[in-house]
């Protein structure tokens, strides 16, 4: 047990290790943040196309969206990452972080699309009909009636997706990127501390704290949105 605490002290008193951890953590946060942002944009667009009225103008976009979500959800994330790195962006000198953001963003977009689509479709049809019967436009019905109700259904599942992306970015170590996961492995390796337990434990705490914080924020927003369900 003493040895364990010695390693803890060693990790936190060696500037080089602290530096590695923080750099890794920063990269994890950067990839996660921008991938989630990209995923939200793609997911929202795909969901809106998917739930739009079927006309001759929407058949092709709808088909493209269907193929996109099917392919992304039907193949492993790690493989998608490899394809991005070694096939699509096999360009020398292209910034790795951008490739990673695109890989995770495109992946997340498919899941976000499903979350938003099912959130929109879970709003009772009568709510839309009420707006239609009053002569409101499709846009007004969506903005004032459907979207505010859908968000309540979407938010919890969206929180899950955000958390999933943060954790899943750990696989960028497979293409040699120095994220939090990779930092822990590096610090624990033979050239450094020669013991994995403490750095990995610390990396786990970093992930946990981040995920916990995100979950907490989403809960607060949910609580705020639920106020219209209170019984007056």
């Amino acid at each position, binding site marked *: 047990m003493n040895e364990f605490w010695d390693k803890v002290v060693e990790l936190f008193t060696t500037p080089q290790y602290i530096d590695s951890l923080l750099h890794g953590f920063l990269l994890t946060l950067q990839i996660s943040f921008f991938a989630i942002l990209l995923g939200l944009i793609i997911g929202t667009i795909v969901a809106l196309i998917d739930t739009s009225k079927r006309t001759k103008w929407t058949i092709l976009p709808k088909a493209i969206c269907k193929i996109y979500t099917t392919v992304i959800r039907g193949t492993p994330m790690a493989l998608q990452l490899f394809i991005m790195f070694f096939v699509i962006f096999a360009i020398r000198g292209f910034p790795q972080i951008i490739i990673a953001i695109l890989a995770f963003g495109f992946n997340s977009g498919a899941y976000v699309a499903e979350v938003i689509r099912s959130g929109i479709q879970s709003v009772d049809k009568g709510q839309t009909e009420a707006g239609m019967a009053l002569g409101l436009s499709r846009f*007004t019905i969506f903005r004032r009636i459907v979207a505010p*109700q859908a968000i309540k259904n979407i938010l919890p599942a969206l929180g899950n997706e955000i958390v999933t992306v943060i954790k899943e970015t750990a696989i960028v170590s497979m293409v040699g990127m120095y994220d939090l996961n990779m930092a822990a492995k590096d610090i624990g390796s033979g050239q450094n501390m020669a013991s994995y337990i403490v750095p990995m434990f610390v990396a786990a705490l970093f992930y946990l704290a981040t995920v916990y914080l995100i979950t907490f924020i989403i809960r607060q927003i949910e609580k705020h949105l639920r106020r*219209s369900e209170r019984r007056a």
Partner: protein
Amino acid sequence: MSEEVLSIKNLKKEFGQNKVLKGIDFSLRDKERVVVLGPSGSGKSTFLRCINRMEEPTSGEMSFEGTLITDKNIQQMRQKIGMVFQHFNLINNLTVMQNLTLAPAKLKLMNLEAAEKKARNLLRHIGLLNKADAYPASLSGGQQQRIAIIRAMMMNPEILLFDEPTSALDPESIGDVLDLIREVVDAGMTVMIVTHEMGFAREIASRVIFVDQGHIIEEGTPTEFFEHPQTPRVQEFLKKVLY
């Protein structure tokens, strides 16, 4: 005879292979009170819902005040053709006041201030002014339906469609809702009502139409319809519901 407000020619509606309406011809005149009766599955609700295109008709022509109802003008038409639903359909994320004022203010029928004033008057009239800032989830079914009726009235519609307005209510609140509908009708509103309340139908209707298997098979004044039904199908129906 007063002026024709609604004219329907050969209205058909199919859901896939299922032919629900097989050619309905119908016309509605100003101040008429038409009650639509028929067994469940006869297409009477679908008929009503085709009028303001809650359901897209498969074929047929409908005109409102002499103008053909099309995809282009349906939003304007709906402002004049109010609807009250079986399940009330108050908007869950809006307060009672917002439910009442959203459409009239958004569609610039009146400014928000005028809409709120009108809403308060109507709410006071039905005894629910204290619920103005409540959300629908906190109200009883009867309260929700009465608010849904005044929400339709907020638009100053030319005609009002009632799609089984009391079918989802507990027996105690049915009376309150029927009283309000009666009041709306007495004020001269042109209405079409799909209902299973036979006593109410007889009392309120100026004309009864009976829909069966996608056709209007009989129509007449309440007295003709209830006391001297012509077709065997209506005779059988009335025997079952009026034991």
